[in-house]
């Protein structure tokens, strides 16, 4: 209880002003969120290359990139939990949901990409990769963090 009071006091003191205190309270998961975005975007690019060339090397790149993105997403989720529970930050629901949606689409996408030969990518896999790319653009449009330090008086 005491801790919470202190937190609120701290927050109240820096609300409305950009003080160094806020930098200390940056979300921990923020440094990890770009990794799945980079992997999934890479998979979209290699999917396009496969679509154009039908060279299986690109399809193999895609499926490994998606797997790497999903593994990175597990770490993002863990870090996000630490931010929510440990640092008692407030989730940015809209952007976080979009990000989660992109990860769920990628789970489907990794199964599609595990099919054999052409239909592992064209058309379903390529479409999913493109969709994930667009959703991630929207999800990260306001920044890499999906939580924010709680502010008294903010919406709840």
């Amino acid at each position, binding site marked *: 209880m005491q801790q*919470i009071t202190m937190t*609120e006091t701290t927050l109240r003191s820096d609300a409305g002003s950009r003080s160094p205190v806020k930098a200390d309270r940056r979300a921990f998961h923020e440094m990890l969120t770009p990794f799945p975005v980079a992997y999934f975007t890479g998979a979209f690019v290699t999917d396009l290359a496969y679509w154009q060339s*039908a*060279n*299986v090397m690109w*399809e*193999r790149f895609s*499926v*490994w990139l998606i*797997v790497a993105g999903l593994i990175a997403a597990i770490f993002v989720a863990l870090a996000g939990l630490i931010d*929510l*529970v440990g640092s*008692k930050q407030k*989730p940015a629901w809209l952007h976080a949901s979009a990000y*989660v949606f992109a990860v*769920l689409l990628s*789970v*489907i996408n*990794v*199964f*599609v990409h*595990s*099919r*054999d*030969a*052409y*239909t*592992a990518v*064209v058309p379903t896999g390529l479409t999913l990769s493109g969709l994930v790319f667009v959703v991630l653009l929207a999800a990260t449009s306001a920044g890499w963090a999906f939580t924010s330090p709680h502010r008294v008086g903010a919406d*709840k």
Partner: protein
Amino acid sequence: MMPIFKSARLAKSTRLATILVALAGLGLAGCDDNGGDPRKEIGANPMLPALQQYLLPPIHIAKPVAWGDDTPKVPQGLQVRALATGFQHPRSLYVLPNGDVLVIESNGPKPPIFRPKDIITGWVQWFAGAKAKDANRITLLRDTNGDGIPEVRTVFLDHLNSPFGVALVGNDLYVANTDAIVRYPYQDGETTITDPGTKLTDLPGGPIDHHWTKPLLASPDASKLYVGIGSNSNITENGIGAEYERAAIWEVDRATGAHRIYASGLRNPTGLQWEPVTGKLWAVASERDEIGPDLVPDYLTSVRDGGFYGWPYSYYGEHLDPRVQPQRPDLVAKAIVPDYALSSHVAPLGLAMYTGIELPESYRGGAFVGEHGSWDRTPLNGYKVIFVPFSGGKPSGPAQDVVTGFLDANDHARGRPVGLAIDRSGALLIADDVGDTVWQVFAAHQTTSEKTAD
């Protein structure tokens, strides 16, 4: 107050996540349809359903269990017994003219990992007991006192490279390793060969070597060898370049080692045999996976010189496979429909045309087929030896189950039949690469001691 509010919200979002995951799981599981009655796809005109593409490929393998004192089941009029046990993944069989039985103990080379899927496939194969160490040898069995049970057991040839096919022509014994045909000098009565052998020709082997078995058959005039070369993938997922001169039957000149493609478009041709009435080449072939529990039926077919049988572009004539791009309409247009479908995913790996007289008359002139059994179909299919009656050099009726009981009541595999051979007495021999046994099927009217007739 604040912490309570937070945790309530967190619980709500966790619940939401759980529901989402469950929904996703449901969607995946929902794609796993059960296969229909395999009898609808046996014979000259199999029922071919529309193809489906999976999100999660169905994997249904039979867990291996021991035979114990049990044996496979045979219909009335036949008897079965273990000829010999304790082998290491016996894969094919060859009977020498003096009655000695060669047991080829072999397993494939370690496949490379190109995709995450290959890791999963490796686990599945290990679970199915298919990951036994490659013995790379041929064991000789000899019955010296005529009781039908071999007393002599020697290592005939060792340090081979995933061998499968064997063919004896005069004093030349050919062994088809996965990457080459090697010739050894053989004298009647030898129980072991120490000669290092001479390479006749290279065969398509590693580094992928997806279908690694190389069945071998000598031409009746002894001038040629026919070799089955399986495809290097399920359906070109390793690129069409990896399929160079694969999914084909080669004709190799015995004198020079030169080869030509005798027939192509056969995904994994095995069990090469001469049909006794017409003298035509016949084979069994395993068709493609992952487009449905009832697609594509594996088959038994005559093999025409220069014939193209569809793989990878199409199946059963002009049924296109959308997974293959770019397509080849020129080849599809001339794709031959195989003679006799065996139903889907049975994995036929052994064929024996029955020319003996030991077994009841109904079996004479027909074909025994060893069905290794499915790994991607529910319910399981195969796991038995069937008989296809022939008349006038063509299949003439529905297939009959001959040797069953490889699966127990819980669908666990006590064994899986692979290569077949007819021994000198006319009994059917079956290599069982999970039970590590060679089974012998003979006519029931004879007692063991009477089996000395020849």
